[in-house]
């Protein structure tokens, strides 16, 4: 085998599977053709938000030619001890509009859908409770937040410091329910081969699903085989097990057939989670020179009756800026809504929108440039954990971004710049996202004269992870890219963490490095050699505070007659550790910034308070940014290598692009119009409010 000294890491490599994807040769879960025997599932969903099923009449559905089975809570297979939100078709209780109450299995998807419409369900129901307010009397403090964060953090006497502050702001921001809308709808193909459950599934990591699915069906990990070679976007909505995967397994068991389940776009608004709405009160106190003396960030958000999802909304506030007195709190209301879930940078995305908007408002109160105000409050160490940063380059992101964007000399006055009928403004916001790694294992098989087979149950949900891992493996093995045969996304491969929390590269990459280390300087016998390596969080997690940082700058134009908002240009500068593949990395930053723009201007799921359903549950009415909404995107990153955190020096880039982007746009909107919109999204009607 030829050794190479040319480094693949850091060079532009086009997606290895790109040609297959554009030619339609890369099968996604639903597209696995398994012969003519596949049958199809259609779901019957609850029309009430809380209540009990008093009767189900499936006779008319069963009578439709081609129908094989109708599963209801009365006769569906019993599931093992799974969490409440996954106990689908296990009882008469209904906890949200859209909850599956029956599943029809038929020879074609059309017949299944037709029959599903014929199932008659009678409910005993009560009025839904779906409206989140900050003055609800039933708000409670969860034991802890997502990802293990403490619910509250308090340092110093915040109220006294706020009262004493010469300059302060006290402002409340709200963000609406938002929904992940990956292009690929969630889909599962399931078949029982004897007592082995085989699934082709769209997810963010087959191993993520193994504990729940084995428990649900009373099988061992050896009796479950999940693959998901290509996934068409996820953003968090495919991280966990959802009910459709269990229904697929049940339907396959009952019918003895290969079963295909694909959610409709409308069903994705109830069955695979959403981002909780938030109500966030921000209070900041400062000296006249801009030195922060107090930070208070109080969050109210919702979760469902059947699950506790406590989004870590204010956790970024714990580390962004120095201040002696500081407090963050999170309170939840349990509402008659479907379970919330992860949506790109859960916590940081809504939380940094509020914090970075409040910092802008404080800058206005102080008469200090908002870039300068941030620079003046840069903490030398993590201000709450009191540990050093592994690397922190927020200052460089802000200064570099300001230069690229042309921030210098900005007139701070709002509502004074006109270009024809457009009101023009600019805004800035900071970004951050935690750097973590999770336990992962990798295996390398070496056979003389053949490419190395590198196996790890990693996932490529459209990010380019397959390509980046191949680059990492090639360098570790000192071979060209075509001498690496990477195998991922299969529950029978070495266990790895899921694609989430921007942890893929920092978790999987070091595991591959560790395996390659095992091979180094070893003679590969003619029969080949197999080595393994593993990686996981180490001392750095306790001893250092590790985060990516960034800065967003936006120009906003608002039509003075219609209130329409345009963002002709944005600049994003990021310090996110070693960049493995610039071409796919740029797409991650670009996608994140675009999703942040979409959050600022468009995305909002409306809960009907009387009926309890998400009323705008399709892509015609739930707007995401269209191409015409996205202007010039200037994307840049700093040379940063964080080897104190992990041997690759990488930080993870899937999420930081969205964090803070909405605040930069909201701040620019204020600068353009003089109007501070504190409730997202900034749709044209806000101009007339």
């Amino acid at each position, binding site marked *: 085998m030829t050794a190479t000294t040319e480094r693949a890491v850091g060079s532009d490599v086009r997606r290895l599977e790109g040609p297959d994807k554009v030619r339609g040769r890369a099968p996604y879960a639903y597209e696995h053709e398994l012969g003519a025997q596949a049958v199809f599932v259609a779901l019957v969903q609850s029309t009430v938000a809380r209540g009990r099923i008093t009767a189900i009449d499936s006779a008319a559905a069963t009578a439709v030619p081609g129908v094989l089975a109708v599963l209801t809570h009365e006769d569906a297979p019993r599931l093992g001890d799974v969490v409440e939100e996954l106990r689908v078709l296990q009882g008469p209780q209904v906890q949200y509009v859209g909850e599956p109450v029956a599943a029809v299995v038929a020879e074609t998807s059309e017949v299944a859908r*037709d029959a599903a419409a014929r199932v008659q369900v009678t409910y005993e129901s009560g009025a839904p409770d779906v409206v989140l307010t900050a003055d609800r009397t039933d708000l409670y403090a969860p034991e802890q937040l997502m990802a293990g964060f403490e619910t509250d953090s308090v340092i110093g006497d915040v109220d006294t410091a706020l009262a004493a502050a010469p300059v302060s702001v006290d402002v409340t921001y709200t963000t609406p329910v938002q929904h992940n809308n990956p292009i690929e709808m969630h889909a599962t193909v399931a078949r029982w081969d004897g007592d082995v459950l085989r699934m082709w599934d769209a997810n963010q990591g087959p191993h993520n699903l193994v504990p729940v699915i084995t428990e649900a069906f009373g099988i061992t990990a050896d009796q479950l085989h999940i693959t998901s070679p290509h996934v068409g976007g996820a953003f968090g909505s495919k991280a966990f097990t959802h009910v459709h995967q269990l229904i697929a397994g049940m339907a396959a068991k009952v019918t003895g057939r290969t079963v295909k389940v694909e959610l409709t776009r409308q069903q994705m608004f109830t069955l695979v989670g959403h981002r909780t709405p938030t109500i966030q009160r921000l209070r900041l106190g400062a000296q006249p020179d801009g030195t922060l003396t107090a930070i208070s960030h109080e969050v109210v958000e919702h979760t469902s009756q059947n699950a506790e999802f406590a989004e870590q909304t204010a956790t970024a506030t714990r580390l962004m800026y120095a201040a002696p007195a500081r407090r963050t709190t999170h309170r939840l209301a349990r509402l008659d809504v479907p379970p919330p879930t992860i949506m790109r940078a859960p916590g940081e995305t809504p939380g940094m929108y509020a914090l970075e908007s409040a910092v802008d408002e404080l800058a206005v109160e102080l008469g200090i440039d908002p870039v300068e105000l941030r620079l003046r409050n840069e903490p030398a160490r993590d201000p709450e954990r009191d540990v050093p940063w592994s690397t922190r380059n927020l200052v460089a992101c802000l200064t570099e971004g300001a230069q690229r964007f042309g921030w210098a000399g900005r007139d701070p006055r709002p509502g004074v710049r006109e270009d024809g009928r457009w009101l023009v403004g600019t805004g800035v916001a900071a970004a951050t996202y935690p750097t973590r790694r999770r336990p992962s294992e990798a295996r390398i098989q070496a056979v003389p004269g053949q490419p190395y087979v590198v196996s790890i149950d990693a996932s490529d949900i459209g990010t380019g992870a397959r390509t980046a891992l191949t680059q990492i493996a090639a360098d570790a093995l000192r071979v060209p890219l075509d001498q690496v045969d990477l195998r991922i996304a299969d529950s029978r491969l070495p266990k790895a963490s899921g694609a989430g929390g921007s942890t893929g590269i920092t978790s999987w990459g070091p595991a591959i490095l560790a395996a390659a280390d095992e091979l180094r300087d070893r003679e590969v016998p003619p029969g080949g050699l197999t080595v393994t390596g593993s990686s996981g969080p180490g001392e750095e997690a306790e001893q250092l505070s590790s985060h990516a940082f960034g800065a967003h700058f936006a120009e906003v134009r608002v039509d003075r*007659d219609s209130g*329409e908002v*345009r963002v002709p240009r944005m600049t994003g500068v990021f310090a996110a550790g070693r960049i493995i593949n610039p071409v796919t990395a740029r797409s991650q930053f670009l996608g994140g910034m675009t999703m942040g723009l979409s959050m600022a201007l468009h995305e909002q799921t409306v809960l009907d308070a009387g009926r309890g359903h998400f009323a705008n549950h399709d892509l015609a*009415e739930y707007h995401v940014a269209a191409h015409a909404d996205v202007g010039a995107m200037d994307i840049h990153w700093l040379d940063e290598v964080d080897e104190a955190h992990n041997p690759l020096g990488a930080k993870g880039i899937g999420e930081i692009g969205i964090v803070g982007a909405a605040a930069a746009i909201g701040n620019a909107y204020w600068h353009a119009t003089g109007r501070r919109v504190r409730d997202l999204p900034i749709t044209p009607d806000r101009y007339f409010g």
Partner: protein
Amino acid sequence: MREFRYEKATDPAGAVALLAGEPEGAYLGGGTNLVDLMRLGVATPDVLVDVRTLTSTEVEDLPDGGLRIGAAVPNADLAAERRVRERYPLLAQALLAGASGQLRNRATTGGNLLQRTRCTYFTDTTMPCNKRAPGSGCGAVTGLHRNLAVLGATDEGPESAHTCIATHPSDLAVALRALDAQVRVLGAGGERSVPMAELHRLPGDDPSRDTTLAHGELITAIDVPALPWATRSRYRKVRDRASYAFALVSVAAAMDLDGGCVRDVRIALGGMAHAPWRATVAEDALRGGPATEEAFAAAAEAELAAARPLADNAFKVPMATNMITRTLLQISTEARS
């Protein structure tokens, strides 16, 4: 989705004859709206009669200088048609403001006029909706109605069988309403011509009916009469994103100026009502008066005096007022330069 038959006729009369005997049948044009509604279970025809290739795909000159547009002309082709762009800029602009490139390639002129409302209570079969399920009430008046009607709606409360605050989603129809187009319709009893003013109806006491067409009547062509001063016309659409969204408010306007005076004017509004809304109050106020921003604004306010908004769509009143004023101002400014 209900099982259905698919039929093709050899000519328009044959299609009309086929559907006359199918009380639950429907014509299939481009299918860009009907097929979606079938997938949702909102439309449940038992037979589809494909008319996409039956009616004309041509745009012909009329003796008076107007145009006859075949019902099967794709939206994209009509928008690109030179005579349309020259004689009726607002028509081409309206078409290009609608849908996406792919949909405009597929959607037909006739079908565009017969789009159903995008009200989310209409498109969700589990919800009350007097348009989809007469007598079931209206979910929108107490629910999501941010983009629903503020003019000419019926609101007798959520339980009433009459209540409907739906809007008509077509952009093309708004421009054709401003141009006083005539819709040529073929029915079992022969051909007739329906003025755009009479094609779409307000909900009144029967929200289930969008138009005055009888079952089985087929749109074969649209006649757009000559209007020489329509060369100075505009279609301005305000929407929630820069493309690919239905109108919050749209304005189709043309104006004939005599020095600083308004000799004649046409104004129609989209996104405001169950039908394309002709702003006759504003037109009457402007005709013969000065072409000034103040006069435009006063006329717009007079038109919107009839608005009866709900909590979440009240913004449409100032937005429409601004956009009428602005659109007329742009036309008059261009005319002077």
